[in-house]
């Protein structure tokens, strides 16, 4: 582990009822980079995210964030330490407005206590106003500012993805994990997300992406890891990975119909 590594795993393993979903994966994410993790379905990519963020308890190995071990921490602790994520199958808070969705992400930055909330003290109002302002900024960052007072259930699929990103950014994380951010999007929309991810990185946030869309992966990644059957089978720069025979065999395929334009 070098000083510039912000997130590292050391032979991380997860077992479900005897089946190894993740078999000793060691990766390191460098400060400020955009890193992609690709691999066939069931290779363990989402499991990897879940294990890193504390949603699953790893059965072996260790995880470090900014040099601090987070292996056995719960998801909320990990989040407080600056690791945010989005979900593959979207999980917006459907019965809350967009603004409230993002405000939930601001929760860990809020200072006013219960008594202040009951008494509606000036400190409470100040805190609420400041966080609402920040939430609005984040919504406008992902292009949803106009719809801030609508319920999240009324968003389209693509908008929900944007909302999830805004919500994750509300944590002010140092690392952002995105699980298939452009799945089901057309090239125009994909372009927008790529732009967004670049902007996020420009704010100094390290981004880790799971994605199948090779245009996106090859287009913005600084480095790529390839997982298969819970193991790392390749890593490197985009053009290296694309040319790696093991990756082609397990994942990319050689067919003309493969959308790796």
């Amino acid at each position, binding site marked *: 582990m070098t000083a510039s590594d912000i997130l590292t795993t050391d032979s991380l393993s997860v077992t479900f009822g005897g089946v190894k979903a993740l078999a000793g994966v060691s990766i390191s994410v460098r400060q400020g980079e955009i890193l992609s993790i690709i*691999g*066939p*379905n*069931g290779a363990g990519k989402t499991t990897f995210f879940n294990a890193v963020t504390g949603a699953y308890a790893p059965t072996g190995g260790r995880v470090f964030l900014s040099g601090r071990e987070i292996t056995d921490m719960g998801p909320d602790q990990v989040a407080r330490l600056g690791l945010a994520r989005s979900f*593959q199958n979207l999980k917006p808070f459907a019965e809350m407005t967009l603004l409230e969705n993002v405000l939930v992400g601001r929760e860990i930055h809020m200072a006013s206590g219960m008594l202040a909330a009951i008494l509606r003290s000036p400190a409470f109002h100040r805190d609420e106003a400041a966080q609402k302002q920040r939430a609005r900024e984040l919504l406008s960052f992902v292009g949803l500012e106009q719809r801030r007072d609508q319920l999240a259930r*009324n968003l*389209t*699929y*693509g908008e929900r993805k944007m909302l999830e990103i805004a919500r994750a950014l509300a944590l002010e994380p140092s690392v952002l994990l995105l699980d*298939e951010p452009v*799945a*089901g*999007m*057309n*090239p*125009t*929309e*994909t*372009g927008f997300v790529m732009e967004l991810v670049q902007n996020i990185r420009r704010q100094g946030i390290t981004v880790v992406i799971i994605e*199948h869309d*090779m*245009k996106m992966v090859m287009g913005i990644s600084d480095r790529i890891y390839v997982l298969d059957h819970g193991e790392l089978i390749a890593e490197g720069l985009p053009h290296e990975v694309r040319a790696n025979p093991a990756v082609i065999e*397990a*994942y*990319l*395929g050689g*067919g003309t*119909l*493969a*959308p*790796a*334009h």
Partner: protein
Amino acid sequence: MLRLTDIQLLYGPIEALRGVSLEVAEGEIVTLIGANGAGKSSTLKAISGIHAVVGGSIEFRGQRIDGLPPHEIVGRGISHCPEGRRIFADLSVRENLLMGGYLLPKSETAQQLEQVLAMFPRLSERISQAGGTLSGGEQQMLAIARALMCKPALLMLDEPSLGLAPIMVAKIFETILSLRQHGLTVLLVEQNAGAALEISDRGYVLEVGSVTLSGDSRALRSDPRVVQAYLGG
């Protein structure tokens, strides 16, 4: 074979389809492309009776089918393989397939099962495994195989390549092509517009709940508007 005339569909107060008209002829592969929320999946759901249309008509082989419940529509020969595969995770592969042939007379089930398994040899290897334990690609195969069990005349596939590795995507498209050789008509909804148009005969472009462009697949692939918006230049 299938004709949609000016159909309208509401999700609560939101108008999902604002007058979609399209046609599918016997033996064709027809693709619907469009952005998220344009109404592609809604169109399929309207056809299979999952959501009731509030206006317009749907005709299949000359008979109105709008307003019928889903199971009757399946009975008439339209099979809908929905987005996200939706395998019955607790049921075995065999049970999944048998459920696909739920409406077949008992005497024909075994024979149809054999035929479908012949098309997907991988599934016969896993015949008594629970559906949920299959890999993503296998599940997609199972979903298609299940949709074929009811001997449909028209197969509707919703985003069959979604979330699959590129190598698997290629296989799925090969499978769709081979289905046509078996005499099946296919209505395909795909995000992967390039690949979809490549294997289909005709295409429709949906935008905000209505059809804005349609025509021969080859023509669509070279239409600058399509290229710009859906094929990514």
